[in-house]
């Protein structure tokens, strides 16, 4: 029974897409009902797999149409769910389910909701299929569906020019990525005569020849485009900004995680290249550059969602750096940060959507002082912001600390100065992330109120629920990091490192041994810091004690200056919401002190992010060329 669950979860979502397209016209209730019902069933089916896969350590395999291997060659499409795939599947179902709930409230004013839900289910199905499949070509198909559903959803609000522009860029650049993946898959088929990932892994056995190096490079570059690592990050900023916020959340929560999953699956399981220091350095360098460029670009942004988009890029840099270390601790750290990124970035996008709903803009220069009007959103935003900045006791602290520990341990063990630089980069990027979120806090929720938003209201409960759920998850995963480590991270990391079980389950017991596959020893990740629960309790006790005394003692509300109610754009607002002609410091330009020192750097970055799609296409080709070149030099 249980082996049908993964494939049912994917098929139901595809089926749901068609059902919505056919019956969605009848009434809005049926349309929304089908979408949410199907998403919920899919969620339940995937969550039901936690016990057998994560705790009992089973691997679930399923041959489509019962086409089992013939004469030792896998000819059918096989689904194979190990702990690594399930880990990402859990992120995927959680994200799209919450996004679906949020959409109910968020899309009030949009037309064509039927198209939205059709594409939403398509996108969800494709990403879920991608992380559950055991077949290389099926993975490519899912990437294609994912890309085109994403393109269409980016252009969903097609009355806005930016939506069409973003969708066009995404289409061109995403297609380049897909083509590279396809070329790589074709080469692998030529070499191995099979498309089953488990079998490919045992056939090539971690050895490389010229064809497989080329294929490896192409596939990794293609997946890099999907996970938006620098220099492939360019479509992300526009797409995240232009898409409806519930979809931005899906993009950052699961679409780029699908790319990360693909990279982990390729480098650890299929090509088994992570014991080579050249591949480790390649990934760590790409990761470190990604996190640094992402965060510095974010510091310069003036739009809430665009800023979050660049932070998404930056945080994926952490994940790539951590998984690129090739150690059990690094893999644990990378997976943990990927999970936390899904939670806090999803939460931040939802709060951005709430602000957009309440005020009609995400421009940081036009917002300010919303904390009194939107208390729930403000608290959720602060939880998300503190989590992404890595302040204790939120989840970002636990995972970032794990990342630092993993990189620095690697640096000390290998004696390679590059890893030490990566450690310092990671720590500095964390401070810059904090700085950037302080800016948003000041420009959107605190600071002076913009009278244009005086009638902003808190969003409806249906939109608050997903935000609160994610905020609670951010706190819980930070406090109970050891539970997460034991039940989710350790099995997933073990699955990525223990390849022979993966192969045996698909191809029959003893197959891996016959092919001479040995597992990397998955040493238990030595990871400990403090007991956050005791500290939080203590913190809360002391805080409440002092706060109650202070809040109940005598305090007076201040008055506004006479005439403060009238809106004079010159004097009324200064730091958030003021107009450029009155001040040399813009409301969202909180860090000009920092930016003047970095003028040269920003000039270069600005030049590179030209917005011209041919430039971006050339970066992708260049990035792919670098990856393939490095692989040719190092792996031969």
């Amino acid at each position, binding site marked *: 029974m249980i082996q049908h669950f993964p494939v049912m979860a994917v098929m139901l979502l595809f089926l749901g897409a068609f059902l919505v397209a056919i019956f969605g016209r009848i009434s809005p209730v049926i349309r929304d009902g089908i979408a949410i019902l199907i998403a919920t069933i899919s969620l339940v089916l995937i969550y039901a797999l936690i016990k057998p896969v994560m705790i009992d350590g089973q691997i679930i395999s399923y041959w489509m149409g019962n086409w089992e291997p013939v004469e030792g060659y896998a000819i059918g499409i096989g689904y194979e769910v190990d702990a690594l795939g399930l880990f990402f599947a859990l992120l995927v179902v959680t994200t799209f389910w919450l996004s679906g709930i949020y959409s109910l409230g968020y899309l009030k004013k949009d037309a064509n909701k039927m198209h939205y839900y059709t594409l939403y289910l398509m996108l969800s199905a494709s990403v879920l299929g991608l992380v559950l499949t055991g077949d290389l070509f099926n993975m490519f198909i899912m990437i294609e569906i994912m890309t085109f559903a994403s393109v269409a959803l980016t252009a969903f609000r097609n009355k806005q020019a930016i939506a069409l522009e973003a969708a066009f860029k995404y289409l061109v650049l995403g297609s380049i990525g897909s083509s590279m993946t396809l070329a790589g898959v074709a080469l692998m088929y030529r070499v191995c005569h099979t498309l089953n990932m488990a079998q490919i892994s045992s056939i090539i056995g971690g050895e490389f020849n010229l064809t497989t190096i080329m294929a490896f490079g192409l596939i990794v570059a293609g997946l890099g485009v999907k996970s938006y690592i620098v220099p492939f990050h360019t479509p992300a900023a526009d797409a995240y900004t232009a898409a409806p916020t519930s979809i931005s959340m899906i993009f950052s929560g699961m679409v780029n995680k699908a790319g990360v999953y693909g990279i982990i699956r390729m480098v650890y399981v299929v090509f088994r290249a992570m014991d080579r220091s050249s591949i480790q350095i390649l990934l760590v360098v790409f990761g470190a550059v990604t996190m640094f460029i992402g965060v510095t670009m974010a510091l310069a942004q003036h739009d809430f969602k665009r800023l979050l988009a660049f932070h998404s890029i930056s945080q994926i840099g952490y994940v790539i750096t951590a998984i690129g270390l090739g150690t059990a601790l690094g893999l644990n750290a990378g997976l943990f940060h990927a999970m936390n990124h899904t939670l806090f970035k999803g939460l931040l996008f939802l709060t951005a959507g709430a602000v957009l709903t309440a005020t009609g803009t995400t421009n940081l220069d036009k917002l300010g*002082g919303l*904390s009194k009007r939107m208390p729930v959103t*403000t608290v959720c935003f602060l939880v998300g912001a503190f989590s992404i900045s*890595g*302040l*204790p006791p939120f989840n970002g*602290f636990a995972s970032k*600390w794990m990342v630092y*520990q993993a990189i*620095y*341990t690697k640096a*000390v*063990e290998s004696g390679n*100065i590059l890893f*030490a630089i990566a450690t*310092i980069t990671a*720590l*500095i990027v964390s*401070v810059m992330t*904090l*700085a950037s979120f*302080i*800016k948003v*806090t*000041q420009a959107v929720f*605190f*600071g*002076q*109120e913009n009278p244009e938003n005086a009638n902003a209201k808190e969003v409806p409960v249906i939109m608050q629920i997903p935000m609160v759920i994610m905020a609670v998850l951010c706190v819980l995963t930070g406090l109970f990091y050891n539970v997460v480590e034991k039940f989710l991270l350790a099995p997933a990391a073990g699955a990525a490192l223990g390849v022979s079980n993966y192969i045996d389950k698909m191809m029959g017991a003893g197959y891996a041994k016959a092919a001479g596959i040995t597992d990397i020893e998955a040493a238990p990740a030595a990871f*400990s*810091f*403090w*007991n956050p629960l*005791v500290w939080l309790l*203590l*913190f809360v006790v*002391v*805080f409440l004690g*002092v*706060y109650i005394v*202070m*809040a109940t*003692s*005598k*305090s*007076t*509300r*201040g008055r*506004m200056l006479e005439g403060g109610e009238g809106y004079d754009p010159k004097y009324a*607002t*200064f*730091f*958030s919401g003021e107009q450029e002609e009155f001040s040399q410091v813009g409301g969202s330009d*909180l*860090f*000009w*002190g*920092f930016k*003047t*020192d970095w003028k040269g750097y920003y000039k270069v970055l600005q030049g590179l992010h030209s917005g011209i799609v041919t430039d971006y296409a050339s970066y992708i080709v260049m990035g792919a060329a670098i990856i393939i070149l490095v692989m040719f030099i190092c792996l031969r």
Partner: protein
Amino acid sequence: MFNVLNIVLLLVFVLIFPGALFTSAVGLWLAGVDRKVLARMQHRIGPPIRQPLYDFLKLMGKETIIPHAANKTVYLGAPIVGFVSLAMIMLFIPVGGFVAVSGSADLVVILYLITIPGVALIVGGSSSGSPYAGIGISREMVTMMAYELPFVLVLLAVARKVGGANLVFSMESIAAWQAANGSLLFHWSMIPAAIAMLLVIPAEVGTQPFDVAEAETEICEGPLVEYSGAPLGLFKLNTAMKMFVMTGLFTALFMGGLRTGIVVLDVVIFVVICTVLTILSMTTIHAVTARLKIEHLFKFYWTFVAGMALLSLVLVWFGL
């Protein structure tokens, strides 16, 4: 972990020694010494050393005015968050020979906890809705970015020096290492890091010339502009506590291991060293310099100070 005795002990640690009460007392003492010595350097008599205590007590009794535009919870909560986290940091720093809490990675916990008072100041100032506070928090944040890089480099250099091939982020092992091999300050490769750390202290505390965030003459104390009464008093106390926490961290990192074995005497020596460091790193620099501009501050920390710390890290990396 959860038995009653442990909880009571932990509460004593947090509330009395070496937490809130002790840290506040020493912090106010250091602030008083700072003002007195500064006055003597400028050829004034200066206030009595207990003046910061009087100031604090007076502010606690004053009326608290919450600005019209402010969010009350955040506005009142911010100084308390800073206060509690500062009291907690002291639990991780070995005061003399006394270690309240020991973990494998307390150095990183300290690194993060130490940013919280700064964040609290920023969020509190931001919530007051004043444009002066807006400029102040922007400067505070840039200052944080400026000193964080050298600070991280110093901590990495210490961890590498003490740990060798094994990574050591534990304050207790750092103290033990220094007890066996002599204070880190007397290892020549660590001297640049010590200088960098001495320069990080005034920026973290926010004393002249690095007080751009609170520049009274330009932006009316920046984040604190709207604060009054008890929350203002708490913020002033936070600054005093930061003096002790930062000099204490320096003492533990670079001059640990100087122990007589008698806890009380060790604590007294520890406080004396902190006082000397306060005069050295804050008062003297304050007396001879004028306030920097924010962009100069940033450049100074990312070039000179970070360079010093990096020098140490590179030296230590090659086993010197």
